[in-house]
């Protein structure tokens, strides 16, 4: 053979044993909450690029936090000033309504009136402010923690409660879990319950709108933990390839049931950073800052509407409550962690801003709280008059057999007969 033999290389000096790395949160129950690793930009600090900016020009936006409301409850910087007083007051009302609704439904579940509930405590600004950046006809593909989209759009709370109670007026006929709402009219796609599956569906819906030369856009929603799911990738790949007119929202509320965000995020620094690998502009925003959420949402929505393609938005917020009524967070995080959360409470922050603006007072706030609560209670009474999961009346067993297909096929008709309904 014409090739010389390769002499055996001297053995590499014995490498050290590998070790396994599992990220862990800074503090566990018993410890003192510590968010000192959360890097928070000053309000007004992060620049507002033109909507047609080249994605690679704003890579650093994926590592900062766009904020409008400062410590003194003033709205500052390039993202401020989009909303009128009346609009801000409406935003406050939506958030307060969602909070009151949550409180009542949480309690109703504890009373055995339904099987399950999931609240939004601390995250109200995200869905309430986002909804106001959309136009009628746009479509959200929400998770179970965006009921603010419905409330801020005026979906009847009675319908929400009827579904939560699976009662005789349940718009989903008792088939779907509580909180897994659906309203085509209000641009709220049927929630699945399987994480991340709907992110790519949002992209598909947006592609369809582009295919048809429509002007409507879509918004996908996902939690921090769920960005780890593979359909997140499918969504980003398709959105990037087809420049779909979609806003891809990540609600980073720091927790995925018991798992802190570091498990899903790994070494990326932020969730917004995931966009960098796709050439998708990625912004982070203070999710507890109503005007900031709205302004960033508007920016992203405008990009989509102008056919400039997808935008990834990470809302930095905190899940103050339990994951769901099946969960007790004191088992995995300090009880007082939410108090230490550096971005505060979205309702309080907007309230204070409105007071500073001179259009709101502590007294009116108290009064509004009471009014909202009694409205919610009145609706709840009405809903309960149509039944709860515990007491009924419910949608019928007949309803259970309907709607699997447009027309009931013979085998299902036979089964319904067997079932005696």
């Amino acid at each position, binding site marked *: 053979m014409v090739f010389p033999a390769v002499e055996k290389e001297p053995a590499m000096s014995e490498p050290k044993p590998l070790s396994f790395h599992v990220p862990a949160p800074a503090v566990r129950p018993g410890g003192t909450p510590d968010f000192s690793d959360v890097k928070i930009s000053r309000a007004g600090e992060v620049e507002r690029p033109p909507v047609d900016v080249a994605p690679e020009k704003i890579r650093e936006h994926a590592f900062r936090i766009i904020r409008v409301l400062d410590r003194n409850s003033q709205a500052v910087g390039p993202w401020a000033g989009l909303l009128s007083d009346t609009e801000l007051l409406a935003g406050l009302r939506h958030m307060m309504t969602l909070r009151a609704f949550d409180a009542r439904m949480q309690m109703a579940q504890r009373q055995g009136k339904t099987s399950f509930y999931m609240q939004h405590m601390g995250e109200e600004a995200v869905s309430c402010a986002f909804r106001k950046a959309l136009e009628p006809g746009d479509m959200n593909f929400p998770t179970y923690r965006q009921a603010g989209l419905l409330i801020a759009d005026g979906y009847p709370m009675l319908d929400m409660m009827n579904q939560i109670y699976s009662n005789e007026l349940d718009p989903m006929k008792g*088939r779907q879990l509580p909180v897994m709402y*659906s309203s085509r009219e209000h641009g709220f796609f*049927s929630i*699945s319950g399987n994480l991340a599956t709907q992110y790519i569906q949002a*992209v598909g819906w947006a592609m*369809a709108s582009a295919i048809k030369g429509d002007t409507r856009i879509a918004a996908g929603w996902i939690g921090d933990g769920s960005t780890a799911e593979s359909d997140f990738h*499918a969504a980003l*790949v398709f959105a990037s390839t087809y420049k779909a007119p979609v806003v891809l929202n990540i609600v980073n509320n720091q927790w995925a049931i018991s798992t802190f965000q570091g498990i899903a995020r790994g070494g990326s620094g932020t969730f917004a950073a995931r966009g960098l690998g796709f050439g998708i502009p990625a912004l982070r925003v203070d999710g507890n800052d109503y005007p900031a959420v709205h302004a960033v949402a508007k920016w992203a929505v405008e990009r989509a509407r102008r056919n400039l393609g997808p935008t990834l938005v990470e809302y930095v917020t905190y899940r103050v409550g339990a994951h769901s009524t099946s969960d007790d967070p004191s088992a995995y995080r300090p009880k007082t962690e939410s108090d230490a959360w550096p971005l505060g409470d979205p309702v309080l922050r907007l309230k204070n801003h409105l007071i500073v603006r001179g259009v709101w007072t502590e007294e009116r706030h108290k009064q509004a709280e009471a009014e909202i609560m009694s409205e919610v209670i009145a609706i709840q009474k009405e809903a309960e008059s149509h039944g709860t999961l515990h007491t009924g009346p419910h949608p019928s067993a007949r309803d259970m057999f309907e709607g*699997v297909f447009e027309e009931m096929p*013979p085998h299902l008709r036979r089964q319904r007969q067997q079932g005696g309904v």
Partner: protein
Amino acid sequence: MPRKTMVEAIRDAMDVCMQRDANVVVFGEDVGYFGGVFRCTQNLQQKYGSNRVFDTPINESGIVGAAVGMAAYGLRPCVEIQFADYMYPAYDQIVSEAARLRYRSNGQFTAPLVVRMPTGGGIFGGQTHSQSPEALFTHVSGLKTVVPSNPYDAKGLLISAIEDNDPVIFLEPKRLYNGPFDGHHERPVTPWARHPLGEVPDGHYTVPLGKALVRREGAAVTVLAYGTMVYVAEAAAEETGIDAEIIDLRTLLPYDLETIVASVTKTGRCVVVHEATLTSGYGAELSAIVQENCFYNLEAPVARVTGWDTPYPHAQEWDYFPGPARVGRALKAVMEA
């Protein structure tokens, strides 16, 4: 009447639907410019533009997930999974999303989409180009599952599927694309051009979902088959001389109980055949419903002839494939039972 291969018939079905309904869109891996690795979508992009016929990234979950979103918007996506063996990444979107959307939203949103996929063996495709996963679809409430066995049906069923308002899984026996195949792999291939079922009318017609067809009348034993196995069963009947009635199911869900029961009531015997592995295959359901509905008419146990419970092998293709000899043995056994 014009003769078409099954590939041409399938393409024609999409063409007809795209012509009639601007909401029909077609996409998948390599289906756009190239026209699909089996050429089922050839020239469609040229004809309808890349707005309606386009290539996708290699992500089956993305293909079906995007289709669900598009269908909810109001389009009628007809997507291709390159081989049924590669549908698993899309299974969640099919099972948890497409199949349940109408139900869980009480009809507010629906998923009128078709997922086409080449299925079955006989082409030395080994583990990853030969599978028959139909039972994984028939177990899922909310899906319709179709398996055509010839060009005429393929076109008519695919048009029905595209026009259907629910998600349809459309399994194309790839060994039949170019001609019928009775399992006699050592013999030359008959092209569809020389087979009466290769006659495919131009334009729009439908073959209804949920209706089986008696392909061969007989009095001695009923054979329940679909796809490639229809021809294998025919060969077995010819070769054994057994007067078998062969039913081509065409739609596996919803299935045509009436036709099945009428035949077995008449013959008193039943053999179920399919390519998929035996255990928990679709044949189990057929066997169960036959004995539930025809128990007092049965003169022998319902027999199943299927692929073995192993992954699909490469070299042993013809040991694995339930060919006419095995089906023939089962026919004889059932007749002697």
